[in-house]
């Protein structure tokens, strides 16, 4: 078995992708020790960012500005500026809402479920996946908010005693959505923040300007890294992970009820909740990959987000992609097997009707393209992998679009119509990416992008002196201290 000394830690890099069942592959490559990990992550937040950041931020801000102007235009003109009209009363706003909520699922999956399953490789990516979750939920929350038409009355979504003696309809899944997404946003934010406290303290200690010292100091809540602090922190984090886990499954199930509880053919199916959850995780992981690949390049995080991390995510993407494909197949099968003419018509219409092209974009992006990931060589080609991730995001957007387009062919042929998005619809979709990336880039600029403290726990140095006795061929160096061993 290989033992690692500081001298041959470098060899770990080559072992990063190898699957040797006798030992764990290293999750941090390069000649990294605790100090250098801290330096790698904190210098992003404390120094001048690379030029790529400024370019990306400029573009994002421009798109965010577009979104702001379009929302103003919407408020001044009314929802007629959108393509929403009978029979497709739910147009882009709902498509975008479901799309963004779906994106938001990967973060909590990585941070909560993978944490409970002791998947150590999550440490490299969990922080920014969680950030992505929160920003995606922000984008998602925007669309129902503006879809109500009278933005200033959006608080009517919340049940509260009022002089109108009026309550939201508790039997409506749209209200359940308010609670589900609200809970999810709260818990995700809390989880993200609590997990970040030790790293914020690191930033506080390394900050050079007065404002940063104070802001990071306030955010770090007086963290001093004492034994008691760590004990409480670990307990709180575990509890929050356990709280967040059911939410990963519940939120998108409730979102799917928006459709499944109705009677529209193609919507009224019991497969919707698991199908939506799988789709959400699929889209979310694709977004994590699409962000991680450029981020590790631009911000010099290649040693922390190693090829193995990327490879693992690609495998999950493939696995979840197969689940989604299975769900599509089941839908079609049940439509045939169920012998309901309306249901059958809905699915034939989806694939071969006037908007059939959208269905085939969805199938190509979500079912066919991810099959490339079966091959290790292709998974390791980052350009190709990034392309697949983007394709999946496109495909997942189209999945929701296809679902909405079911409304084009209602029960009553006299009400049939065609949905045409307007330029405002398009602009708001693009603008929501501006909002997302602006928030994300600000996060990259000012907060620890990688969970510093957590990454250190999966480094060999953290386990120095532990677990030697279980091997017969323990080697100690001349000084008598234990060698560095891959944990």
């Amino acid at each position, binding site marked *: 078995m290989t033992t690692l000394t500081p001298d041959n830690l470098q060899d770990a890099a080559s072992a990063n992708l190898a699957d040797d069942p006798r030992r764990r592959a290293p999750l941090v490559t390069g000649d990294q020790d605790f100090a250098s990990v801290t330096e790698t992550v904190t210098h992003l937040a404390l120094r001048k960012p690379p030029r790529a950041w400024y370019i990306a931020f400029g573009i994002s801000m421009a798109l965010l500005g577009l979104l702001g102007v379009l929302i103003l235009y919407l408020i001044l003109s009314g929802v007629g500026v959108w393509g929403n009209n009978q029979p497709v009363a739910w147009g882009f706003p709902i498509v975008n809402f479901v799309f963004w909520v779906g994106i938001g699922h990967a973060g909590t999956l990585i941070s909560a479920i993978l944490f409970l399953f002791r998947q150590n490789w999550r440490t490299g990516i969990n922080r920014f996946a969680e950030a992505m979750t929160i920003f995606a939920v922000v984008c998602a929350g925007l669309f129902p908010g503006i879809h109500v038409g009278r933005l200033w009355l959006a608080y009517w979504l919340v049940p509260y005693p009022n*002089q*109108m*003696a*009026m309550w939201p309809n508790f039997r409506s899944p749209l209200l359940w959505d308010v609670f589900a997404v609200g809970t999810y946003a709260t818990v995700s934010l809390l989880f993200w923040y609590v997990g970040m406290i030790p790293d914020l303290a690191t930033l506080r*200690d390394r900050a050079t300007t007065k404002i940063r*010292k104070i802001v*990071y*100091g*306030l955010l770090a809540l007086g963290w001093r890294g004492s034994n008691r602090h760590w004990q409480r922190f670990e307990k709180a984090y575990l509890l929050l992970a356990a709280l967040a886990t059911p939410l990963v499954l519940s939120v998108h199930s409730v979102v799917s009820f928006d459709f499944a509880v109705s009677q529209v053919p193609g919507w009224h199916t019991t497969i919707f909740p698991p199908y939506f959850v799988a789709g959400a995780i699929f889209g979310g992981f694709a977004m994590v990959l699409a962000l991680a690949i450029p981020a590790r390049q631009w911000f010099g995080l290649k040693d922390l987000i190693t090829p193995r991390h990327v490879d693992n995510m690609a495998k999950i993407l493939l696995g979840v992609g197969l689940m989604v494909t299975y769900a599509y197949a089941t839908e079609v099968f049940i439509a045939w097997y169920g012998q309901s003419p309306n249901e059958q018509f809905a699915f034939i219409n989806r694939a071969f009707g006037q908007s059939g092209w959208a269905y085939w974009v969805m199938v190509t992006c979500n079912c066919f393209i991810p099959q490339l990931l079966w091959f290790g060589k292709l998974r390791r080609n980052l350009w190709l992998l990034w392309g697949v991730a983007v394709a999946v995001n496109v495909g997942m957007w189209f999945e929701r679009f296809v679902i909405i387009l079911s409304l084009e062919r209602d029960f009553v042929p006299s009400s049939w119509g065609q949905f045409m998005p307007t330029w405002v619809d398009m602009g708001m979709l693009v603008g929501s990416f501006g909002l997302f990336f602006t928030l994300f880039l600000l996060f990259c600029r000012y907060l620890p992008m990688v969970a510093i403290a957590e990454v250190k726990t999966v480094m060999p140095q953290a386990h120095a002196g532990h677990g030697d006795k279980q091997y017969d061929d323990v080697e100690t160096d001349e000084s008598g201290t234990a060698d560095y061993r891959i944990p």
Partner: protein
Amino acid sequence: MDSSGQFHFPRWSNLLLPAIGVLAVTAPIYLITLVGYGASPATINVGYRPEQPVEFSHAIHVGELGMDCRYCHTTVEQAAFAAIPPTATCMSCHTNIHPKSIKLLKVRESYQTGQPIEWVKVHDLPDYAYFDHAAHVNKGVSCLECHGRIDRMEVVHQAEELSMGWCLDCHRDPTPSIRPRGQVTNMEWDPAMATDEEQAEIERIHKSLKSTRQLTDCSTCHR
């Protein structure tokens, strides 16, 4: 910032913890009081008493003289809007009664020029709420139910909330507010005074009402 250049929470920040506790307890009470009482229409709208161009006293005309509401508000049984009387209605009496009164200066002026007096509307429902006086009055809902004891008001003020919840209180259970049609404008009437005939009429009206579900439908009032 301390001498080492590091940020430390100052000692007083320890007080924040109990402060949060106090806030957690008092904030809901404050909010409930503020929203439930302070911002309620019962506080904000009831008692609205704008100054009118002419000091017309309902207390004298209705309370003392016993005039019927419909003498002036003529359309109340036929139309959604209970008409504000033209100056000619005033002058039908005041040509002979107090013809020189200084208080009636504006009334005479209006009568001569044909320019209506600009009364200030007291009971003003929002434009999106549809209210029909005739529908209510003809079903035996007294003026009193919404306008209060007009016969005791020197200057008219808003007696009830006129909020949606207040409307719904009655629409969900209209029976207690129904009286015989003949007593609709009678300010002194009491259900205990109902004769057997009147009681039968109340029951007849009650049976003729739409279902509570229809009465509380959105489009009943928001058309």
